């Protein structure tokens, strides 16, 4: 139908597809930074709004990195960093070999300890670690989004694991 519009994000169909593909991941990313879901959703909305208002400037292929740049800037400009507390729900994987209530309690406690330990990571380590573990992103994609090298991603993930083990071991 609208063939001539396909390259331009000012077209509502293209914009809504872009929103569909990117919004959840962007929301996760901002959430991992600040631990505040309402704030994250707000920033995501504002980022897409600013993206739309500058839609003519968007270069196809660079749309995602432009979006993340906008979101990062909004985050930095408008919201002070306070203590980060992240909470996650867990998939309930039925472990048929061990339904022992003590075991389940221990699993839950470990989950809570891990959540707290994640909140204490540096922002850089936390974001990379969660994008890999929860979003399932490979190091190459994380590197692209954060605008660093794959080696840089490895450094953060390695650092995150060491830090988490130390924090959990100390409790």
């Amino acid at each position: 139908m609208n063939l001539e519009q396909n390259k331009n994000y000012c077209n509502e169909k293209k914009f809504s597809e872009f929103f569909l593909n990117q919004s959840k991941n962007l929301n996760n990313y901002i959430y991992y930074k600040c631990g505040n879901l309402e704030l994250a959703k707000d920033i995501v909305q504002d980022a897409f709004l600013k993206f739309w208002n500058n839609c003519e400037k968007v270069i196809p292929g660079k749309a995602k990195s432009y979006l993340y740049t906008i979101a990062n800037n909004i985050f930095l400009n408008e919201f002070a960093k306070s203590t980060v507390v992240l909470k996650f729900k867990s998939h309930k994987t039925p472990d048929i070999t061990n339904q022992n209530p003590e075991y389940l309690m221990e699993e839950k406690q470990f989950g809570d300890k891990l959540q707290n330990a994640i909140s204490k990571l540096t922002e850089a380590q936390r974001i990379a670690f969660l994008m890999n573990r929860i979003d399932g992103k490979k190091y190459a994609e994380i590197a692209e989004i954060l605008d660093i090298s794959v080696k840089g991603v490895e450094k953060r993930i390695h650092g995150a694991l060491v830090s988490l083990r130390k924090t959990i071991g100390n409790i």
Partner: protein
Amino acid sequence: MKQNYFLAKWLNGELSEEQLLQHISQEEIDVYKKIANTANQFEAPDYNVESEYDAVLAKKSATKIKRLNSNFVKYTFRIAAMVAIIIVSYYYFSNTKTIYATKFAEKTSFELPDQSKVFLNASSEISFSEKKWKKNRNLDLMGEAYFSVKKGSKFTVNTAIGSVAVLGTKFNVVVRDQFFEVQCFEGLVSATFLGKTAKIPAGNSLRVLNSKIEFLENKAETNPSWLKNNSTFESMPFSYVIKELERQFNVKVVYNSAIASTLFTGTFTHTDLDLALKAVSIPLNLNYTIKKDTVILQKNEN
């Protein structure tokens, strides 16, 4: 020596547990495994893509109102909103017509009952009867609108100066004082003015300025530039160009009436007032000064 982030490589599947034992103890490996697996089971935060998208669209319409922050403006908007509610109620009870209207510096878009898309430029209004749509496909336009008509659909756009009959197409209609223009981008439209009818195929436009009729060719455009936040003019009187600038930025422009009928060809952007003013003043050798929301254009003395 190159840094070896062996934990990251292990997590990624590039190193085996046996290889890890070269660096750390089995006890530590077990902790890392537990960390990795537990974190893997965490769920991402709840996010409803559709309702978030609706929120973005809502913010888009509200954005222009948010930018004006003073108490006086808030007060004025409250009054305007009350008046708008009264007017809308009046229309609802007496006319049962559907009306879409834009103010200065505002654009909007909506769908007609046949799913044709309409984009309204600033300071414009469209009204039609939704109930009578099946029998009577007429709508009234004041200002400027771009129509993307569903294939196979027919309706008529009426304006104070002329009317346009549509045959499944994409076209733009402008009607401002003494100026009526129909640009066809796809398909065919038929425009009527003073009892005369002309067919306008894609890539062409009909223009009526002060009762003089002209046919022009569009320059391989696919849709009007105002949709992309630019206003483009070809040999239009300067007074029209300025009036459109006033509409897009909600400012008042003062200039010497001697240049009102000077013909202008060019484009100005809707996103930056300074750039827009440069675009209209430089070709006519003018300077501009901005005082609050009034712009003064003066001849360049250099």
